[in-house]
């Protein structure tokens, strides 16, 4: 028996969430009194996973898998789970993880719980807590099948060091065929994505127009943050849809979320309330967002934000 984690990498390097998944997988394995196996595909720094508790790394090297294909990767995970007699399979909740997980579940006839936010509260019956109702509530659910598939919600468990002496084993699964071909990948490089960001700076209609986003971008760049926006802003075409956070947009689970000129409609709050610390800057003291915030400033964004940029520059200079 084992617990299997899929640690995704990009150009050989692990994503930060892979270390969180490995840390989490190690704890689940301990709860079940078994070992952790981590599957990697075309990763170059497999040894780094030992630090987070990977007792065994199953290393797949495959030219065909250089481009992500959910069906092929799901099939590789199935073969790995069968080989390692894995009872729990854990994947990420990023774009590829969410694409993959339902396919893995069907391949293994396993029940699947997505958006899991904590360690299992019980291993028999296997019970997990997951986000539901767009994070307005949580659902405790039992996975009743022999094998369980879960996707871990980002930033919900954290990265924890748990050094083990691990080993790497090469694994050469059969690669399934797929009629779906990848034609083109367009990815902005050098910019922090909302999915990966520790800090997100978000602007709303209070900023009055797309020409005023310069200060939002400047604030984000000082903080190494991603930029985001409210739904009206993306509907008005001021900012791209990919920046829309909220109920029907992207969920945000960052450590710090700074909302500028966003009133805090219930649909917006649903998308961001998994963020740890929320800062709200708004002219309207009655804005509902203040009720959900940790720190608030009532004031004109066009005065407050430049001051904040200045103070952060000072802070960075003093703490460099």
């Amino acid at each position, binding site marked *: 028996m084992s617990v299997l984690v899929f640690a995704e990498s990009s150009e050989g390097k692990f994503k930060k969430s892979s270390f969180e998944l490995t840390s989490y997988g190690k704890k689940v394995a301990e709860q079940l009194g078994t070992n952790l196996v981590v599957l990697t595909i075309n990763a170059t720094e497999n040894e780094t996973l030992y630090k987070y508790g990977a007792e065994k790394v199953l290393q797949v090297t495959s030219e065909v898998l250089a481009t992500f294909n959910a069906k092929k990767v799901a099939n590789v995970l199935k073969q790995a789970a069968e080989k390692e007699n894995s009872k729990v399979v854990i994947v990420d909740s990023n774009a590829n993880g969410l694409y993959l*997980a*339902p396919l893995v579940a069907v391949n293994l006839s396993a029940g699947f719980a997505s958006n899991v936010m904590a360690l299992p509260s019980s291993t028999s019956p296997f019970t997990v807590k997951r986000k539901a*109702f767009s994070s307005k509530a949580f659902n405790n659910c039992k996975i009743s099948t022999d094998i369980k598939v879960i996707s871990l919600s980002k930033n919900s468990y954290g990265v924890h060091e748990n050094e083990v002496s691990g080993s790497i084993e090469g694994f050469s699964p059969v690669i399934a065929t797929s009629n779906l071909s990848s034609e083109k990948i367009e990815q902005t490089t050098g910019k922090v994505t909302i*999915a990966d960001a520790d800090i997100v700076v978000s602007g709303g209609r209070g900023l009055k127009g797309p020409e005023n986003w310069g200060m939002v971008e400047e604030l984000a760049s000082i903080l190494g943050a991603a930029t985001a926006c409210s739904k009206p802003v993306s509907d008005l075409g001021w900012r791209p849809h990919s920046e829309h956070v909220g109920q029907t947009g992207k969920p945000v689970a960052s450590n710090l979320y700074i909302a500028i000129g966003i009133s805090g409609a219930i649909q917006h709050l649903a998308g961001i309330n998994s963020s*740890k610390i929320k800062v709200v800057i708004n002219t309207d003291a009655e804005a509902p967002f203040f009720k959900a*915030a940790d720190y608030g400033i009532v004031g004109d964004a066009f005065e*407050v934000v430049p001051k904040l940029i200045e103070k952060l520059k*000072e*802070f960075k200079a003093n703490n460099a």
Partner: protein
Amino acid sequence: MKILVCISHVPDTTSKINFTENDTKFDSNGVQFVINPYDEFALTRAMWFKEKQGATVTVVNVGNASTEPTLRKALAIGADDAIRVNIEATDGFAVAKELAEVVKNGSYNLVLAGKESIDYNGGMVPGMLASLLDYNFVNACISLEIDGEKATISREIDGGKEVLSCNLPLIVAGQKGLVEEKDLRIPNMRGIMMARKKPLIVVESINSEAGTISVSFEKPTAKSACKMIDADNVGELVNLLHTEAKVI
């Protein structure tokens, strides 16, 4: 082209979320139910294929009779007919197995759904359905074009997009971008009248086995009050974020 659009019946986005029966059941008292917003993007795209390319559009829901007004709304928007699989939906895997029967029996070659429902946020039904049927599948789809048998699809990836292509049959789990918000349709009176006469067929469930069982619900604990900082003292915010919140 025969299109099937999967419709979830969910509480409106502004609903207060409460639970009853010792926090084991969603409290639907006073709650307005709507077509799941992600499914509405899919339905709207299907309408486009119907009008421009002569596709037929069937909508389907797995649920009890209380979901029928939501299916009627989809018919009023323009779907040709509706199917309700008569069993309460409690688990995504079970729903996917029920839908697989519907797809097989109706030989649909394009299945559109939202990437997740806004109530349980399981995000699993479209992918599971594709896997059960061995159909091509694209998740988090932000554009879809069909030319004869060939489909060109874009999906959102972290920090960008990927363009994919394949032949039908295909299952797509959509989100905003598939159509724009302004393209969404509000049923007009004529549509509502016509919807009453359109077929809504109830099929019995195959009693598929669930993968998960809901035990209970919780609401987030109330958070402490927001700490207000004077607009003339922005430096204090930087200080608190560093020393108290420890996020910078």
